[in-house]
């Protein structure tokens, strides 16, 4: 699927470009588009500080006498959805999935990259074929697999399934990356008496950092933003809300009470937006690489 390598936008390097449109018209058009792109975010932020009436009659106004933190405070202390707990639960899932994903995908990718036998090519194909299965549809039979294993509605069940979804692209990316690391390094370490596991984790793994960073970014965003899997596997019965399932519980019943909707949504997106603003370049290239997995 991924015919191209990880996209990289070199922002810092000045060099002649193959094609570059210039002129005031271009800038004006881009500014107009940027406004269109940002208006919803602007409305989200300012409406979180306004009353229902002011949201509807003065949606764009920034007049200080309209603004209040009252609704943001009540969203923060919403009895239906404890946002702080939502952050903590989701962050826990993000960490668990990331750790488990690299611990499982690392070794198998290493074997696939270093062995030339046919069956390891076939193994790679099997994993990569997994990217074709839409997770929203896969979760239905997985419910019954998890029930059979006694893991339905549990954190291990959810984390294991979510980790499985990361495996196909992780293995594809890691195996491709390890192939670019000279095998002579492994041989030198083997001569010094290091076993395969030792070689992987102390010699190869440190050199895989760019690929691992890409996957961590991708997994972090996809686990944080996932809705259907936590909603179905953890369910309202478990009492465990991630940020998205909590938002759904808090917002869907009051979808026209904008003093609930906007503050809740703002609190939900704030952490990832901060991460994005701080690490724009990494996030953009990581998420775009992930998008190509199809």
């Amino acid at each position: 699927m991924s015919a191209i390598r990880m996209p990289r936008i070199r922002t810092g390097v000045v060099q002649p470009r193959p094609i570059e449109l210039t002129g005031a018209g271009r800038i004006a058009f881009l500014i107009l588009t940027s406004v269109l792109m940002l208006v919803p975010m602007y409305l989200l932020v300012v409406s979180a500080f306004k009353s229902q009436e002011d949201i509807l009659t003065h949606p764009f106004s920034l007049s200080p006498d309209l603004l209040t933190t009252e609704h943001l405070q009540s969203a923060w202390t919403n009895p239906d959805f404890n946002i702080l707990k939502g952050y903590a639960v989701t962050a826990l899932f993000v960490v668990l999935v990331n750790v488990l994903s690299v611990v499982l995908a690392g070794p198998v990718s290493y074997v696939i990259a270093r062995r030339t036998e046919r069956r390891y090519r076939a193994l790679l194909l099997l994993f990569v074929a997994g990217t074709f299965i839409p997770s929203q549809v896969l979760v239905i039979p997985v419910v019954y697999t998890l029930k059979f294993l006694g893991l339905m509605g549990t954190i291990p069940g959810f984390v294991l399934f979510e980790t499985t979804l990361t495996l196909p692209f992780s293995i594809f990316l890691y195996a491709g990356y390890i192939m670019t690391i000279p095998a002579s390094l492994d041989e030198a370490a083997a001569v010094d008496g290091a076993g395969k596991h030792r070689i992987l984790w102390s010699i190869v793994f440190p050199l895989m950092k760019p690929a691992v960073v890409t996957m961590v970014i991708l997994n972090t965003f996809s686990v944080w933003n996932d809705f259907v899997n936590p909603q179905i596997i953890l369910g309202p019965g478990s009492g465990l809300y991630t940020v998205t399932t909590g938002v759904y519980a808090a917002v869907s019943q009051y979808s026209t009470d904008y003093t609930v909707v906007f503050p809740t949504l703002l609190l939900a997106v704030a952490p990832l937006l901060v991460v994005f603003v701080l690490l724009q370049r990494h996030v953009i290239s990581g998420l775009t690489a992930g998008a190509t997995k199809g």
Partner: protein
Amino acid sequence: MSTPAAAVRLRDRLTTASMVGPALLLFVVMLVVPVGLSIYLSLTDWNGYSANPAIVGLQNYVDLARSEEALRAGWVTLLIAAVGTVLLSVLGLGFALLVNGASRLNAFFRVVLFYPHVLSALVVGFLWSAVLGTSGVVNGWLTSKGAEVLPFLSNPTWALASLIGVLVWAGFGVNVVLYLAGLQTVSRDLLEAARIDGASPRQAFLNVTLPALAPVVTVNLVLSLVTLLKTYDLVVSLTGGGPAGSTQTAAYLILWDSFHNNALGFGSAQSVVLMIVTAGLALTVARLRSRADQGAQA
């Protein structure tokens, strides 16, 4: 050290197994077995809890071909995928050309075009439904100015257009970045040669840049298609499948039938069809494109 060769080989095998085993086991239990289970369930009349589901053969697939609701969801999904893919690819390439430069302003524009992709589709849907809903921000503002309310989400056609519009708003930043990466690979020597030979920028674009971008176009088409065929979260939060089921996508109806209607066999049949269509369309687009590329080179 005089370990017999057989013992060395055995240890080597055990090491390999310990590296491959855990990931493969999880993959089989959580992905291969469930896909098989889907195929099996699609041949039964299971409702999700009865102890003895009966095998009904291909009956669910026959029902599917006759179900107006399922067929409509299928067409809606294909429409979203087709229109969305065209828009994402055209806007992706267009804006990539516009922001393809190393200036700080271009870097800023790239971030602005990309940022909605960072937000969860669920949040994006709730946000836009608050903006576009009948009693939402835009209509509230229009009413306060004495204008008519616009049926962004309450008229079937408008709702589908709004859904596609929001999908494009949230997603085309990725396409921009992919095309930008592609533009960096266009040979500068060829463009320079074209310029010296007196080609206009337009001719240079059509005859040098576009052919060089062919692989990136393929990636964009396949990626957009596969992603849009799975559209689910945004439907839940933006339209709830409405009005009157007009924006129900295949994934939405599958989950609805499986868990709310207790028609798990029927839902599984739809899942199997969706998986086959997704894989089939993606492979077809990739193959057509590669044939077109070969044609262009010949």
